[in-house]
């Protein structure tokens, strides 16, 4: 996972829970089918309009509820570049780092609007808004996670720790 991500914004409100991102009733379907239903409870056309590299920007408590990683899986399947929110639910934040879905916490996301072009620096925890020429300071990642992010998630990190020599490509 690259630590700089640039993309176009889709904007949502507070409390986007994992039942919204990845509804339970489709969870036993293959990833591409599940992805068609991502966010549909609040935005039925999301999976059609989102394009690779787009960034989701939301309010407080993004990803609350279930520990399901299908939430990250559908977003990655739709090639969402990153999620920026005012705050994340604990398990969602951990899972995102682990599977290599970039996430950044910025206190006030109300300054970012739908359609803006933004650039996230994951390691610094900063966001540059190209549309509005503004910078927002986010929360820096805890140090012990920076390595994991740089390597692309928990799996490559574990591979390194366990001394399993696999190229990044094979591991992904």
């Amino acid at each position, binding site marked *: 996972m690259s630590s700089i991500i640039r993309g176009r914004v889709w904007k949502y409100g507070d*409390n986007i*829970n994992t*039942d*919204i991102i990845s*509804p*339970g*009733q489709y*969870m*036993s*379907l293959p990833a591409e089918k599940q992805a068609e239903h991502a966010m*549909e*409870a*609040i935005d039925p056309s999301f999976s059609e309009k989102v394009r690779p590299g787009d960034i989701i920007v939301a309010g*407080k*408590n993004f990803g*609350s*509820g*279930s*520990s*399901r*990683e299908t939430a*990250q899986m559908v977003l990655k399947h739709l090639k969402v570049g990153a999620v920026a929110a005012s*705050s994340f*639910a*604990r*398990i969602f934040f*951990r*899972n995102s780092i*682990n*599977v290599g879905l970039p996430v950044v916490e910025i206190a006030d996301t109300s300054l970012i609007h739908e359609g803006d072009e933004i650039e996230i620096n994951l390691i610094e925890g900063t966001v540059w808004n190209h549309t509005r020429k503004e910078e927002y300071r986010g929360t820096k990642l*805890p140090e*012990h996670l920076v390595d994991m992010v740089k390597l692309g*998630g*928990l*799996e490559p990190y*574990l*591979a390194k*720790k*366990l001394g*399993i020599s*696999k190229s990044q490509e*094979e*591991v992904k």
Partner: protein
Amino acid sequence: MGMTMSEKILARSSGQGEVKAGDIVWVKPDIAMMHDLLGPWLVDPGFRRLGGRLYDRDKVVVVSDHCTPPATVQQADILKFTRDWAREHELPYYYEFEGPCHQVIVEHGHVRPGRLILGTDSHTCMAGGMGAFATGIGSTEMIGVLLTGETWLKVPETIKVVWDGELRPGVFSKDMVLKTIKDIGHAGATYQAIEFSGSAIRSLSMDDRLVLSNMAVEAGAKTGLIESDEEVVRFLRSKGVTDEIELLSSDEDAVFAKTLYYNASELEPQIACPHEVDNVHPVQAVEGTPVDQVYLGSCTNGRLSDLRTAAQILKGRKISKHIRCLVVPASQYVWMQANKEGILDILAEAGCVVNMPSCGACGGFTSGVIGAGEVVMSSSNRNFRGRMGSAQGEVYLGSPAAVAATAIEGKIADPRKYMELEVH
């Protein structure tokens, strides 16, 4: 400096004398729990790529509960995968068709005071009701735990929630936890632990305590703890656990992020309204709201004491003709015990349908999901949009008594008017 329950458990698990909130520690979980839907099926590919060898199979517990009995071919495939995986890795602890994982691990003695339990499900926090530190993790994170036997955790601050006084008839631990979540808010305890204490908590049975810890995550908490006492010992002995049990509580001088005080005797029945668990109101505010389905079950409120309460209300009465009432005992043990006590008969005679122990419609997986425009009154723990089926449906949450009263009237009802009948 004194330590909280969380600090004590994480200190032991990380091999340190003392830890404090905010520390990041490497810990060795005592139990790694997975269920069918978020377990081996998702974990296996990465696990294999990294060597595929379990660090310690005795610490791994797998429960098939979300896809049981399978409603679709895909669910059957997941179930088969899970079963085969458990066999291939010679897991000593694999359970299926026995009920939701959280109840199963409690009943089979895997949960003990002071243990660290990580599970691939957000309601893993339920085990905290017995004095364990228990929290949900993702499937990828589980790969690391399975391979290395350890992971990192941030030691959480603790919000202490004190309930003193005595609950009045018709008011239950579900009402206590809904009221608490309302006040803390659905993200109010994010990255923190909640510890429930006070005389009203101590007088609850294990069945009723687990409701509180189960729903801690609905306030965003990492875990929900209850200090362990003789009730925990009694419960474990009744499940055939003979080992010595070390009780655990926070030190007198432990530091809490904040403390909330409640008087249980002032509490009224509470209902969580669509579509957030902290959208909680006293039952009077929503009394009379018509429903299509009533759901008594789940790891939150499908235990024996819940079925007893519902039977007490439904005995000699009939449920409304306009609704269906699904009863889902939280485990095979609960099913059999309720059967012995005549509870299943009482519920069936009242017009309820008794299903098998499973996650069922609680998470919108199998039997009993709802369609567009349908309204459910449920004893489960989440009412998010789309949680029990259609995103155009609505879910209200309440105690088993409120659920039973609602079944009779076909509209959300105050359970207190039905509490006079005895079950035996």
